[in-house]
């Protein structure tokens, strides 16, 4: 049939023009050995002074959270400025903010893995670590927001003396399950990825301490292909499970709002819109961390400008989806014809918190569009600054959602202007210290880049590539 149709079955493949050639994932043709040397160096070398300073500062800032929470527990949850219709306060704003940050890590490690986006390998380890630390920061807020933290275990389905059970119709309980599952699975996924790299560190170790600890945690990994076969399958499955997980976590966070009837909260697009926003903010944070780190740790050949550019593009895409959702919300608020809903949106844009709304719009909808320009995507300072704006914008998005809807609730007599107290502010600032502190510990003691995975995407790793030892033209 093919012959009779007169089509040329011998295909002439066009040459790729120079301007459309793809940049390599590891620059300067680095060797496999170079990759493990370079990444292990950060862990094995002498502790740099800047690390001590940075860890000292972030540790001290983190202690703010500790002190503020001590004060809160000893005094009462009212120190958070919650004696107001906006009873969710900064606590829930911060909770959603931090949880959202985590989503980029899972997206990079799981979704990009399923999509076979090989560029993820350079950044996934750091991003996954970021996920775990962000979820830790997030968990603090709702746990203390319950008021009497020593009863927080009532959230768990455990038998208790009152012989009552948690109420599963409440989205807040769904949150408990979603966030704890998210934390656990992210940790498992991260650790699974670490095993081969810990084995690398074990085999390089010179001191007894290192040999023992890396040996212990690498679980006797040998790099056996029979093991790799099961390992890869498990990794694929974890990626396959993490993908619906990451979608569900922020969807469930959005259910906290959207299953209610509060104007500005109840709208059906909330789940995907929250997920997009979370990924958006998460990539903002990944860039905030990695842009300086790639220079400081001299990882420019592994975390290349191409990686940074690709992340900028993700931010651009997610920012656009978020922009679409903002637009749909406003349009349907008008189209739906519900006067309360309409008021909620007019109040957002022109009420007492108009500034928060417009900060959100400028940072989330307008600012990412700067990434249309290649020159900006490749300018590390510009990327860093925009990534900060993205973080700010996404914090304000949660502020807008939580505060503006609540401060004008259905009962006008309880309308009030909400402001945070110093305890609110310092608790939140402290979590940034905690986040950075944990991250600094991570980068000093664990391989910051997934060594074996980066090796796997180099041309030397491909048995069909000349650099991987394949003989040109011939076979066998």
């Amino acid at each position: 049939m093919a012959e009779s149709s007169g089509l040329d079955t011998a295909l002439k493949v066009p040459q790729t023009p120079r301007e459309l050639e793809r940049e390599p994932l590891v620059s300067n043709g680095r060797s496999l050995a170079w990759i493990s040397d370079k990444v292990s160096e950060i862990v094995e070398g002498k502790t740099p002074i800047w690390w001590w300073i940075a860890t000292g500062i972030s540790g001290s800032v983190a202690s703010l959270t500790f002190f503020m929470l001590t004060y809160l527990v000893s005094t009462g949850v009212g120190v958070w400025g919650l004696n107001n219709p906006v009873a969710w306060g900064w606590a829930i704003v911060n909770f959603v903010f931090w949880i959202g940050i985590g989503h980029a890590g899972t997206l990079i490690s799981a979704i990009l893995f399923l999509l076979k986006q090989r560029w993820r390998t350079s950044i996934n380890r750091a991003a996954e670590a970021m996920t775990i630390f962000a979820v830790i920061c997030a968990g603090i807020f709702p746990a203390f927001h319950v008021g009497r933290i020593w009863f927080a275990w009532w959230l768990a389905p455990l038998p208790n003396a009152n012989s009552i059970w948690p109420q599963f119709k409440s989205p807040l309980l769904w949150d408990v399950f979603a966030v704890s599952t998210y934390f656990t699975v992210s940790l498992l996924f991260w650790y699974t990825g670490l095993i081969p790299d810990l084995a690398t560190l074990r085999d390089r170790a010179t001191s007894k301490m290192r040999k023992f600890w890396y040996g212990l945690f690498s679980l006797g990994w040998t790099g056996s292909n029979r093991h790799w076969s099961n390992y890869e399958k498990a990794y694929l499955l974890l990626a396959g499970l993490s993908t619906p997980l990451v979608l569900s976590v922020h969807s469930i966070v959005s259910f906290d709002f959207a299953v209610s009837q509060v104007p500005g909260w109840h709208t059906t697009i909330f789940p995907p819109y929250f997920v997009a926003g979370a990924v958006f903010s998460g990539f903002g944070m990944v860039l905030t961390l990695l842009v300086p780190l790639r220079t400081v740790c001299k990882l420019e050949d592994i975390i290349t400008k191409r990686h940074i550019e690709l992340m900028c593009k993700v931010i651009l895409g997610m920012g656009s989806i978020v922009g679409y959702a903002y637009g749909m919300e406003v349009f349907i608020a008008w189209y739906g014809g519900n006067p309360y809903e309409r008021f909620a949106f007019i109040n957002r844009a022109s009420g007492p918190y108009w500034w928060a709304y417009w900060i959100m719009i400028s940072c989330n909808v307008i600012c990412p569009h700067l990434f249309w320009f290649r020159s900006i995507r490749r300018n590390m300072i510009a990327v860093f600054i925009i990534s900060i704006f993205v973080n700010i914008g996404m914090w304000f998005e949660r502020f807008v959602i939580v505060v503006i809807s609540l401060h004008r609730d259905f009962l006008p007599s309880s309308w009030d202007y909400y402001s945070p107290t110093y305890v609110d502010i310092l608790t939140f600032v402290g979590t940034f210290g905690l986040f950075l502190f944990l991250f600094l510990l991570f980068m000093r003691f664990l391989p910051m880049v997934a060594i074996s995975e980066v090796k796997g995407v180099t041309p030397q790793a491909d048995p069909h590539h000349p650099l991987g030892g394949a003989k040109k033209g011939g076979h066998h």
Partner: protein
Amino acid sequence: MSESGSNEAYGLLAQFDTPAAVMVAAAKIREAGFRKWDVYTPFPVHGMDQAMGLKNSKVGWFCFFGGLLGYTTGMCMIYYMNGWDYRIEIGGKPLFSPFYAFPVSYELTILFGAFGSLIGMFSLNRLPRLHHPLLKNETFKQVTHDKFCIVIETSDPKYSENETRKLLKGSGSKHIELVEE
């Protein structure tokens, strides 16, 4: 460890420089009919399972049954707690509905599925183990760096030191050594 009589030798180790070389060698070892042998690489080499003649991994089943167990646990737990033991009516909703029970059951599906996959992976790999003869070998340490190895165990019925050494040499390895138990 070694049940066979080959005294104090774990196996014969052959080192290779490139993934292509080790893959060609692996295909030869498989054709020669060895059973207790393995390829050791710094990263999973694409196509190696085929070259070694490995079957599709069974980890998927662990994941599937883990997930199934998670979903069932979630639904049963919520039915028992809110639909049976502690009935409480909220917002005019039914005492039990798969809709409101879905988010939690879904999360448990994923949680148990993830544990299933990992337990599956570790048990199929017989990991963790704190000791392995290969891990004492200095040459072998380069596997996690940038070298590729094939190890044929002495306990393989086809193993004979001279013949196997010849085979490995013929398959292109430049460095071959005996690994102690």
